[in-house]
């Protein structure tokens, strides 16, 4: 039997982490729930924000002609009008009473509504009708048709907004908020998985079987890579589902922006995950049982939660001093920098600088973490970090 080199041992470890966790039913269920909630949210908001529509019933040819113009007026004003013909008043009234029609236009003479008149629709009907009746009386006074058109085609007054809504920025804010939320959840969940995975191996003592075969550094590297890849894949799937749903219901006005937002979130997940996973692995290696994990994870939890709140704050005010500083610190940058990039608050070199700091910090952390992990992983009982760092050999 051929014995393969052990250079790729960490890949076997990573593969196991990925496959075993991806196969886990609770993981599949929670991923499905996340996607359902996200898609539901997107479809739900689009239904709520969908342009207003009205059903307008008509009785008689005159009414029909007026209704056609109401449809056009509605289009110009941003709502949709569906016209339905009724042979006489009675069925039309019944429809209004039951609520399946919003209003009925009878001949050129009357509008029937149930109780509270639909104001937008009524305003349009009135405007069209007034214009129509004005045209008729002008025709009766013998004015030539082109003069009548001139008289009636008056442009509406222009409107000047003092604080115009920047649609692109608004979408970016929403996307940034969702991005921070996703990064927070993902960093926390997958960081915890690294810690509890380390404890699982330690508590079940399988680590002794493993370390008779591979080095602690290979085990640690494989574990972090495997779990991180799964987190990345899950983010990609969720992001694609969100993007697909938004595209399908037409919520996204700037799809390219959303796509790059997902890319930015993915990049910062990778940067943040490696930094935090290294620390979570240490937190796991120094405790004997899952029950004791909470205590060593608390400082990390506080860091992530605090960074999360700074990240949320940055959605409102991306250039605050706090957000500016936090976007360069390796522990908070993954939750703050994406927002600032998405809201166009910073230059590319600043983003690159922050990413470089994150990568540098992780690389500085890895040897120390590996050292603590290697020494602590085979010990029983609670291990003091200072102790394992000090002891030589």
């Amino acid at each position, binding site marked *: *039997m*051929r*014995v*393969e*080199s*052990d250079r790729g*041992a960490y890949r*076997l*470890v990573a593969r*196991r982490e990925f496959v*075993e966790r991806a196969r886990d039913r609770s993981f599949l269920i929670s991923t499905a729930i996340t996607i359902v909630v996200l898609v539901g949210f997107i479809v739900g908001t689009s239904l709520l924000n969908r342009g207003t529509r009205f059903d307008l019933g008509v009785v008689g040819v005159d009414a029909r002609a007026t209704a056609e113009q109401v449809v056009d007026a509605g289009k110009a004003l941003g709502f949709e009008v569906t016209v339905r013909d009724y042979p006489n008043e009675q069925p039309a009234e019944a429809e209004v009473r039951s609520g399946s029609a919003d209003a009925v236009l009878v001949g050129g003479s009357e509008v029937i509504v149930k109780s509270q008149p639909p104001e937008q629709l009524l305003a349009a009907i009135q405007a069209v009708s007034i214009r129509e009746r004005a045209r008729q009386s002008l025709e009766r006074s013998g004015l030539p048709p082109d003069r009548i058109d001139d008289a009636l085609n008056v442009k509406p007054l222009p409107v000047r907004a003092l604080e115009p809504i920047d649609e692109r920025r608004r979408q970016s804010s929403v996307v940034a908020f969702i991005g921070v939320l996703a990064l927070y959840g993902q960093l926390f969940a997958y960081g915890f998985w690294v810690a509890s995975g380390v404890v*699982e*191996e330690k508590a*079940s*003592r*399988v*680590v*002794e*079987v*493993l*370390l*008779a*075969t*591979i*080095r602690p550094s290979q085990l640690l590297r494989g574990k972090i890579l495997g779990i991180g890849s799964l987190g990345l894949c899950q983010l990609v799937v969720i992001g694609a589902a969100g993007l697909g749903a938004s595209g399908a219901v037409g919520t996204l006005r700037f799809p390219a922006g959303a796509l790059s937002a997902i890319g930015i979130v993915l990049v910062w997940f990778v940067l943040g995950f490696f930094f935090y996973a290294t620390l979570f692995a240490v937190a796991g290696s120094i405790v004997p049982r899952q029950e004791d994990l909470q205590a060593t994870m608390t400082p990390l939890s506080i860091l992530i939660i605090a960074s999360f709140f700074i990240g949320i704050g940055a959605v409102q005010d991306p250039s605050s001093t706090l957000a500016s500083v936090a976007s360069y610190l390796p522990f908070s940058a993954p939750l703050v920098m994406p927002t600032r990039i998405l809201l166009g608050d910073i230059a590319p070199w600043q983003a690159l600088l922050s990413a470089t700091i994150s990568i540098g910090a992780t690389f500085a952390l890895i040897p120390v973490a590996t050292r603590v992990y290697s020494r602590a992983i*085979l010990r029983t009982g609670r291990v003091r970090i200072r102790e394992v760092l000090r002891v030589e*050999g």
Partner: protein
Amino acid sequence: MLELIDLSRRFGDVVALDSVSFSVAEGEIVGFVGPNGAGKTTAMRIALGVLEQDRGEVRWRGKPVDQSVRRRFGYMPEERGLYPKMRVLDQLVYLARLHGLARSDAASEALRMLDVLGVAGRARDRTDALSLGNQQRVQLAAALVHRPEVLVLDEPFSGLDPGGVDVLSGVLRERAEAGVPAVFSSHQLDLVERLCESVVLINKGRIVAAGRIADLRSRDHRRLVRVEILGAAPGWYATLPGARVLDRFPDGAMLELSDSLRERDVLDAARAAGDVRHFSVVQPSLSEIFREAVRA
């Protein structure tokens, strides 16, 4: 040959191993025997590189053992360890792959090992769904799945039912016949005596006796007598000058006779004490050698 040379290790002020040296030839099964806390597990962990020694070295086929060599060793730790949630077959394939087997070899070897150990029917089950005895068999499969060049097994028989003991004994013999050196620790000395030609006796971190069991026995010149008497008062042998009790069992005892005491005197005393059912002059067994070595 697997050689442990001058291994020493301290834990704080406790000397766990003090210049421990012994070797296991290819095709040899060596029993590693000693009281709890004698240093057996420490020595085995050092041999597998799970623990570092303060001094000394481990050699295989004349060369110092490193990580790549150890991957071809089979190890069963004293504290059993498997992934509780992983399926049995997946677990074995994974471990075989870590030991360097190609994927197809890993799968076929894992299935073969499960079959040999009588747990093939549980291949698709989660490990923690198995009884402790069956988990023990899977643990053995994990130590053997990659057809190791060397076997180091810490208490492999503890927790096995008689059927499991027979299966494992068979596997060990078969591996030894294939030229694999095997060392295992055990407190079941009769088992060690049956399975091994040689033993290493360790006590308080030092080797106190080592070699072929037959040699150790022939070197032991003590005269031992096994007596069983029905209805004797306890302590009937107290009247015999120069008899030392090595072991006591229901209605009987194992006595060591001093030079001045003759076997017939013991028999006379026994007959006076009650109805003698058994009287024999015996060669010291491994248990007696062990007790003597540990007492010293």
